[in-house]
Each structure stands twice: as C-alpha cells, then as structure tokens.
C-alpha cells in the first residue's frame, strides 16, 4: 500500500549536541529484586516460572515468570502502599534500586530536578478491571474506592515514582506496545538535548495479573507455549556525557541512535524494522561488523518472527551475543524492550566487551510501531575516545 519507510532518506536530525550516556541500570525481574539477581539469572540462562497466585480469580495460564516474593508491603513498606497496584509498585521499587547506592544512601548527583520517563501499555490491567467491575457490581455504580481511582489513570506509576523518590523534573509516561521502552529512551534523550533535563530515569514496567493474562491470552490465541507471560520493570539512568564521572559513576554505554517506523500492513514488518536498523547504522557511521550483541523484543506473534528474521539478516554469518527477553524473563510486553536494554548492560558486566563495540535493541509491536536503539558499549570511566 505504501512505500517502505525511508531507507533512502538521510538519517533523521542533526548530530546530537548532548551525548546520552547510560550510567546505571536496575531491574526488578523474575530473577529477583536486584541487579545481581538479574545478572546471575541471565548468566545462567535459566527461566524461572511459577504458578500464578489465585487472587483476582483464576488466570488462564498454568505458569508465568513472576517476580519472586514481590509482596508490595514487604518490599516497599506499609506506608503509602494501601492502594498501590502491582505495576506501580514494580516501577517504584525499580526506581528506588536505581537511585540507591550499595550502602543504602541515594546515589550522588541525582537531586529533585531529575526527570523520569516510563513506558506502559495499559498501566495496571488488574486494578483497572477491578475498578470498572466495582462500578458494575456494587449496590450503587459509584461505590468504587476513590483511593484506587488514580490506578486506572495511565500515568499512575510514573507519578508515584516521582512522589516516592522526590523527582520534580519532567515526568512522562509513554506508550507504544512492545516498543514502549525504546520510545521512552528517545523521549528521554530529547529531554536532555532540548535542555529540559539532565539526569533521567528511563524504563518500562509490566505486571503479571489475572486480568492481563486473560487479555494476552484472548488477544494472541496462537501464542506459542514458550512465550510464557512475564512481569517486571527495567530502568536505566541516563546522563549527559561527562556528568556520570563527576559523581563517580561509570558510563557502561552510550546511546548512539534510536529510530522508529510504522508497519501499516503485516507484511511490512520486516522492511520497516530493517529500515530503522539501516538508519541507525547510517546516522552514526557504525557498521554491523562491530556489533557485539543484539536483544530482540520477542513478540509471540508473526511480528516476533519477522523481528528475528531481520536480526538474522543483519548479522549474516556473524555470531554476536543474541538475547531475547521473552526467553529469559518471559513476555513482559510493554517492558520487553527495556528488559532487552538492561540485559545487554548486565551481559556486558558478565563478559567484558571490547572497547568500541556496539549493541542493538529492537522492538516490534503488533499494532504498528517498530524501532531500534544502537548503543556503543563502554567506554569505561576516563578512557580516551
């Protein structure tokens, strides 16, 4: 119907005047609550599944990749959590871990001016469904819990992160299905380039719940059995080049380019993503020869297969590290690209990357968004470029 997304056009935009460095990451995942848990799970390549809890009615799945021991009150305390839903708690906990130094203090240099950008699809599916159900089943249609109404609003998790962690900078929620984490990354970079933010906490969250399990199962009837549903939240800390070093932080990666397109027809998925990847390389002068690792979003439908085919096509006979979040932490849908990103960062801690090598994160969503991010791994602190 329409042409292939501008393979031939020059790469978008001018060279960024602000270089965006990744200076930290955190993940609350089916491997556990902490970075070390995630890195260990990734290293061992295992996938942890569990039987979903029965609250909220029976889920239509037998097993899922659940964050172990994630009882909201146990993790975050009783204060301020009475009405908090699961996806919000996952985000609040992940932001808290990103901001916490090993001794328990806040990491230096991230004050109240910090910004937060968070990706989501529907926020908390369970709390939204429960709220709507109350209106239908209680004696009066307005016998709903007003304290839970903000859970049904899509920016709830981002706003609670700001409240919990004192983040008064721009606070933005973005939504693009499986590409949400990449859209958040691009939004965050632009906040920095336009001078609206210095440090930005950036990631995406997804909960497992009975409600989400029903929606995912009914909407993807051909979901392959290995595409077990997962949950969690993954975040990175983004800072302008040079800033992390001022606060004693390393810069494990630089975000070189983020590119997007839209596939208008199912058969366009391949061309759309391939075009994004081509532009990412062209705009940075990088070559696929220097790719060290690739992380795909691993959708359960035909889009996911097309994504894998694009990656295989780029790589040819090269064999870099190849990760798929779905294989590790399950299908975390809105959080899948964010998990791909932190998986690369965690892998680079396990297996030091030769300086200057690049990594690619891709995402394809069934509704149309496709995109990728190209990273340069390293340099370690102080290394000359």
């Amino acid at each position, binding site marked *: *119907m*329409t042409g292939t*997304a*501008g393979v031939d*056009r020059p790469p*978008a*935009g001018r060279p960024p005047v*602000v270089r965006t460095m990744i200076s930290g990451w955190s993940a609350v995942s089916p491997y556990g609550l902490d970075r070390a848990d995630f890195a260990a799970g990734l290293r061992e390549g295992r996938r942890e599944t569990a039987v979903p809890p029965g609250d909220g009615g029976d889920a239509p799945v037998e097993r899922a990749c659940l964050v172990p021991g994630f009882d909201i009150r146990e993790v975050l305390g009783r204060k301020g959590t009475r009405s908090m839903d699961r996806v919000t708690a996952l985000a609040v906990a992940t932001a808290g871990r990103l901001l916490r130094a090993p001794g328990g203090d806040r990491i230096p240099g991230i004050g*109240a001016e910090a910004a*937060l950008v968070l990706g989501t*699809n529907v926020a908390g599916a369970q709390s939204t469904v429960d*709220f*709507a159900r109350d209106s*239908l089943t209680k004696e009066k*249609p*307005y*016998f*709903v819990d*007003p304290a839970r*109404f*903000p859970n*049904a*609003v*899509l*920016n*709830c998790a981002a*706003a*609670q992160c*700001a*409240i919990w*962690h*004192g*983040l*008064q*900078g*721009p*606070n*933005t*929620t*973005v*939504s*693009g299905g499986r590409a949400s984490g990449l859209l958040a990354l691009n939004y965050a970079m*632009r906040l920095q*380039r*336009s*001078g*609206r933010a210095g440090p930005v906490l950036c990631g995406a969250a997804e909960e497992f719940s009975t409600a989400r399990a*029903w*929606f995912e199962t009914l*909407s993807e009837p051909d979901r392959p059995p290995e595409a077990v549903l997962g949950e969690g939240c993954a975040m990175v800390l983004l800072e302008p080049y040079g800033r992390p070093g001022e606060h004693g932080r390393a810069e494990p990666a630089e975000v070189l380019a983020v590119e997007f*397109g*839209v*596939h*208008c027809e199912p058969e366009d998925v391949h061309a759309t993503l391939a075009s994004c990847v081509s532009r990412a390389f062209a705009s940075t002068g990088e070559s696929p020869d220097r790719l060290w690792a690739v992380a795909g979003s691993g959708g359960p439908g035909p889009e996911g297969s097309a994504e894998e085919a694009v990656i295989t096509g780029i790589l040819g006979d090269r064999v870099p590290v190849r990760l798929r979040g779905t294989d590790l932490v399950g299908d975390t849908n809105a959080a899948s690209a964010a998990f791909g990103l932190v998986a690369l960062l965690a892998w680079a801690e396990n297996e030091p990357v030769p300086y200057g090598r690049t990594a690619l994160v891709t995402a394809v*969503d*069934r*509704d*149309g*968004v496709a*995109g990728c991010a190209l990273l340069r791994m390293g340099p370690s602190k102080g290394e000359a470029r």
Partner: protein
Amino acid sequence: MLSEPAGRRVVITGLGVVSPIGVGAREYAAGLRAGRSGAKPVRGFDTTGFEHTIACEVGEFDPAAWMRTLDPAALGRASRFSVAASRMAVEDGGYADAGLRERHGLIAIGTTMGESREFDRLVGQEVAEGPARMDPATTRRINASRLSVLIARELGLTDVEAVTVPTACAAGNYAIGYGFDVIRSGEADFALCGGADALCRKTFAGFYRLGAMAPDLCRPFDRNRQGMITGEGAGVLLLEDLASARERGARIHAEVLGYGLNCDASHPVAPDSGSVARCIRLALDNAGVKPQEVDFISAHGTATRANDVAEARAIRGVFGDATPRTVSMKSMLGHTLGAASALAAIGSVLAIEGGFIPPTINHVETDPECEVDCVPNVAVDADLRIVQNNALAFGGNNAVLLLGRHEERS
C-alpha cells in the same frame, strides 16, 4: 546549567477538532465565541443508579467520514477521535497524504485513560459471562499506543515515530511540547500532536466518587463551583517548521513559542501552587516571553475547589497584579481529560486568529480566593499576540504551553 539550543521556528498549520461543542475547527471556534455548552445527560453508557448524569459527550459524529483506510468499527472510541482529528488537521493544513509520506514525522497523542471504553466493554462481558467469553477482538484494542499508531496507519505513514503520551490530564500539552522539540531541533519535518479520550462509566464513577464532579454545570472560578463535568473528544495540531510552511505556501495559524514541564512530586490529586508557578516560569523562560506579554491565560480550570484556588494562586504568584484574563474552556467543553489541553491549545490558536477571548460560562460570582478576571459568560474581542495554556494533571504532572500570533521577525 543546561544549554538552551536555538532552533527552527515551529508553526501550527493544521487543526483537527472532535469536541462536545463542535467537530472541525470552524464549528469549534464558533462554539467558543458563542459560549456554547456541551453539557447534556449521558447517552454513552447506562447511568442507572447515578443521582446526576451530566457530561459533555461528542454528539453527532461520523468517524467514517474521516477514514479512508481503517474501518472505524475496528477502532476503540478514543482512537476514532484521534484518527478523525488527525485527518482533519492534515486536510486543514493543506497536505495530501502523499506529501506527508515523503517526510519524516512524529505522531504524539496524549491521553488520560487510553481506550477506556473498550476496557469497560470487556469488564461488562466478564461480569455477565465470565472472563473466557470476553471478545478477543476487543482485547486487541486496549493498548494506549493505538491512539497514535492508528493515525499513521490511516494516513499510510511509515516513516514516522508514533508515540502515545499518557500523562493524564496534561497529556495534550506534553504531546504538543514533544512535537515542538522535534521540529525545532530538525529531527522531524512535521508533527501531528494533541490528545484524545473517550468518556466511560469507570471514569465517570471515579470522579463522581471523588466528589470532584458537579451535578449540573462546570463553573470554574465561581464562588459556588461544585466541580468538573467529564467530557471527551480529541484535538490534533499539525506542526512544522516555518521554512517548510512557507515553501509550500501553507496558512500559518499560529506559532508554538515554548513550553515547560515539571512534577509536584507531592500529592497524587491535589495541585501544589508553588510547583505550578515554577512550571509557568519554566514555560515563559523557554519561550522567551515576559509575563507582561501574555495576553490571556487558558487555565486548566477544572472547577474543583482545590484546583481553581491553587491554580489562581500560582498564576498570581507569577503575574501579580498584572495577571492577564484567565479563562477556562472547560466551562464549555467539560473536562475532556487527555484531550483537554490539546483542545484548549487549539482554542487559544483560534482565539488569536479570531481576535477574541473565549468566555468562562456558567459564571455568577467570582470566588474571592480565585482573583482572576475569567471573562464571565460572554467572549470579548481582543487583539492577541501571546496566549498561555495551562495543564495540571493527576500525579502532579504540570505542562504549560506558550502560543503566539505568527509574526515575521526582523
């Protein structure tokens, strides 16, 4: 501390409106000038059991008239609004779809609740027949991302970044601000940005239970105001840089001058006037506008007790005794949530073009705690250069936008 890059000038060349007081920019402008009210008894869902049932719904509206590619029946209600408003904005902007397809663009649509009507439908099916009987096609329509990406699919745009910005009731301004940044930096050639929401039972019940809703009318800044009236709709603006607009001979409605964002980070629903004032100052600084240059303020103005006092206090904290006239279009439109600041931005543009300040209707007596001239009940003629559009969202997400009459600069 942070560098402020100079960039291209960002102009508005297309407007698309689906609102409770009119569809299309012309009809909407006429409604704003006339002080038309969109408040009527709810028809979109069963209101049995509610003691008051007034809302501002989009009335007669045929989405099929604005769709050539997509089947409106396969879209959720909010996406129908956003797609239709985008088609209108593109047509108003004098762009053929093919012209847009050759350019790199951003599509950014704000929302508060996303496809909330679809959620309600699914929950109704679940309650009636159990979860396994929920309609699979509807489960594929619930992601908020569809409000933006379906615009690309309707217009056949592949070389675009489509992002939904669900930053609650300030989302429209967030999306317009995002468009401003990518046009100003040269990262995109055009941006379709704005906001959309569909009224639904769950939202109505939530605001009702919070005590935030008036039983009959929305009376912003009035001593006897009782709260908001919920609404729905979409507003979409086509942005491009000045050179591109000139090159294709486009009509320029107005210019985006700048914006500011911040977060109260204090209370999920009660606005913090100090933080809102800081956001206003961020926007003025970003736009290079002095407070005395603002000709009127389009307030968030929900007509809840808390909002109007906090917002008026924030405005007076910045503008002092020289506070410009401060109106609430929500008096006419209701609170259209994610569409609200986009519709108010479009209203501000139409006011600049038409030389009038929209009224705050349903007004009897100004609350002495809200020391603003809200242009009660009747629009006034005014020669306008600069308008400020406020948005204050749940979660303390503030976004303030500055719009200006397009003038050649030396």
